């Protein structure tokens, strides 16, 4: 999988590159409009992360260029503005997703995977992990041939953990992803623990474990 990151902030770019390289993607970068435009003209990418505030041009124009070329590949607009306007404009111009800075690495990873999954499996391909099979289109989870019922939140937690398997997912990142922005001021993320406990019970027959990391977050491992 080839990914292009268009981001003018070098350290931000470095973080994103390293996060995605851990997932074994082939990552290329561009730090300005011109380079990005040239690269987009020559190569095609499976996923493009596009910061729309570039020093020498409007990122949304790049988006228009990508879409007019019709090469396929998903586009995630990244912005520090988090303005409704940008979000709508981006999505109207054909972006697949919108990610507001700052974000957690786990979230970036999840968004990229979701875009790639939509593009290449059309949302229909099942996911196999250990002795578990997941059918995302109808949220079905089968362990050793037996279907296990997961409620919406348990399913969301599991999918997020699977997307970030073998990586530390902090409680804050998990809470934000599963419960949304409104939960972020809750006085503690302790309430996540009871959800994880339920999840572990349901995963008891699988060879997937959810390990607590020093009370900081969780890590999904496959035995």
């Amino acid at each position, binding site marked *: 999988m080839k990914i292009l990151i268009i981001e003018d902030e070098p350290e931000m770019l470095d*973080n994103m590159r390293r996060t995605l390289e851990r997932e074994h993607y082939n990552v290329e970068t561009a730090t300005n409009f011109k380079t990005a435009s040239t690269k987009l003209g020559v190569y095609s990418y499976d996923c493009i992360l596009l910061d729309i505030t570039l020093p020498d041009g409007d990122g949304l124009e790049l988006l228009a260029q990508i879409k007019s070329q019709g090469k396929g590949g998903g586009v995630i607009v990244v912005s520090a503005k988090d303005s409704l306007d940008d979000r709508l404009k981006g999505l109207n111009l054909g972006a697949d997703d919108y990610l507001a800075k700052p974000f957690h690495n786990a979230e970036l990873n999840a968004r990229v995977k979701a875009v790639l999954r939509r593009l290449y499996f059309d949302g229909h391909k099942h996911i196999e992990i250990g002795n578990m099979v997941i059918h995302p289109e109808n949220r079905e989870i089968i362990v050793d041939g037996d279907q296990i019922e997961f409620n919406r939140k348990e399913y969301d937690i599991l999918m997020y953990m699977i997307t970030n398997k073998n990586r530390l997912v902090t409680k804050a990142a998990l809470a934000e992803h599963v419960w949304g922005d409104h939960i972020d001021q809750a006085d503690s993320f302790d309430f996540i623990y009871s959800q994880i406990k339920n999840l572990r019970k349901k995963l008891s027959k699988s060879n997937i474990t959810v390990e607590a990391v020093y009370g900081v977050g969780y890590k999904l491992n496959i035995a």
Partner: protein
Amino acid sequence: MKLLNHTSRHLSVLLLPLITLWAFAFYYAMLDEIYDSLDDGLENQKVLLLKRLKKEPSIVENSDFDKHVYTFDPINKEIYDNFKESYHDTLMYMYNEEDFEPVRVHESAIEHHNNYYKLKIITSMVEVDDLAQDLIKYLIGLYILLVVSLLLLNNFILKKIWKPFYHSIGQLKNFKIEKENKITTLPTHIDEFKLLNETISKLIKKSSDSYIEQKQFIENASHELQTPLAISINKLELFIENNPLDEEQTKSLASILDNLDRLTRLNKSLLLLSKIENKQFLDEESVDFLELTETIIHDFEDLLAHKGMGINFESNSAPKIKMNKDLAIILLTNFIKNAIVHGQPNSEIHISLDNNLWSITNIGLPEALNQNLLFTRFRKIGSNTKSTGLGLAINKAIANKYDLELSYNFNDLHTFLIHFD
């Protein structure tokens, strides 16, 4: 009391003693003039009588006022020598009035062929009580006339003169800096008003400018903070993942991450506040508060379960409010979240909704919160370190935007209310 009526009131009070004083002065001056002319007339009569006496000596026989307006009374030489001419008032029976009326009397002593007489001449006098009565009547009339014309003058002329002033202060009364409405002043020829208008315009412009500048500063600052925050958070996350760390190290780094997340939330809240105030939420729709409340309660069920709390939602109508959906969600979410976060564990939260009111009640600290500071920025309740202190300020900004009224009351329970009209 209005300025116009204020001056009218003062003037009418001041007029009363002025007119009274003037009345006394006028009355006595007039009386003095009357006496003067009467006395002149009496003296003239005396001269005429003395002339007539030379031709017609028999008039000295007249000693009664029944026939003439004069009398001669014989006196001796001694009295004649010491006699002093005088003018005085006395009463005399008047046949036409059938009453005693005041008359003016002139007494003098004369000598006629070595006989001495006291000469008394009378003339009818002005009736002082009638004069005073008339004077009072006319003065009351004058007073009323003055007050009425004063009022009319104030109302018609002064009102016109003061119009630019009232126009300006009327605008000031309705001025809200966050609404960005401009102040217009009426042209005027009066220097004081000109100065006032110029000063108002200048002050308003200055305040508006710094208000806009401040709003933009907060928005820009928040934007600029996003990228360094993002870099720090992501770097730390990568560091934790890529390095073998023991528990203590991991926890220290996690604590830094937590604080960065807090900073992010704070920053996002500030940005949201600026965006609401900078009118960046334009699209509106009819938001069903019943449905919205139910959805948000549902979103919080895990947090509620964790604190052993429950929400009792009671509604008898489903009011629809025209506003931005995202802001409506934020408004209700903030209230519900506050009730859960600051609520006592294992207690019940009560939400009620009808056509005019949405209210939420919870058991919390056993003391009332400060009404005046509640909806201001960075007002934290208790020692909750995760709170940004901006939730209620955001709610206030949303409420202001849609002319909703927020209120709070405490009677052992904390209640927040949204008034829809």
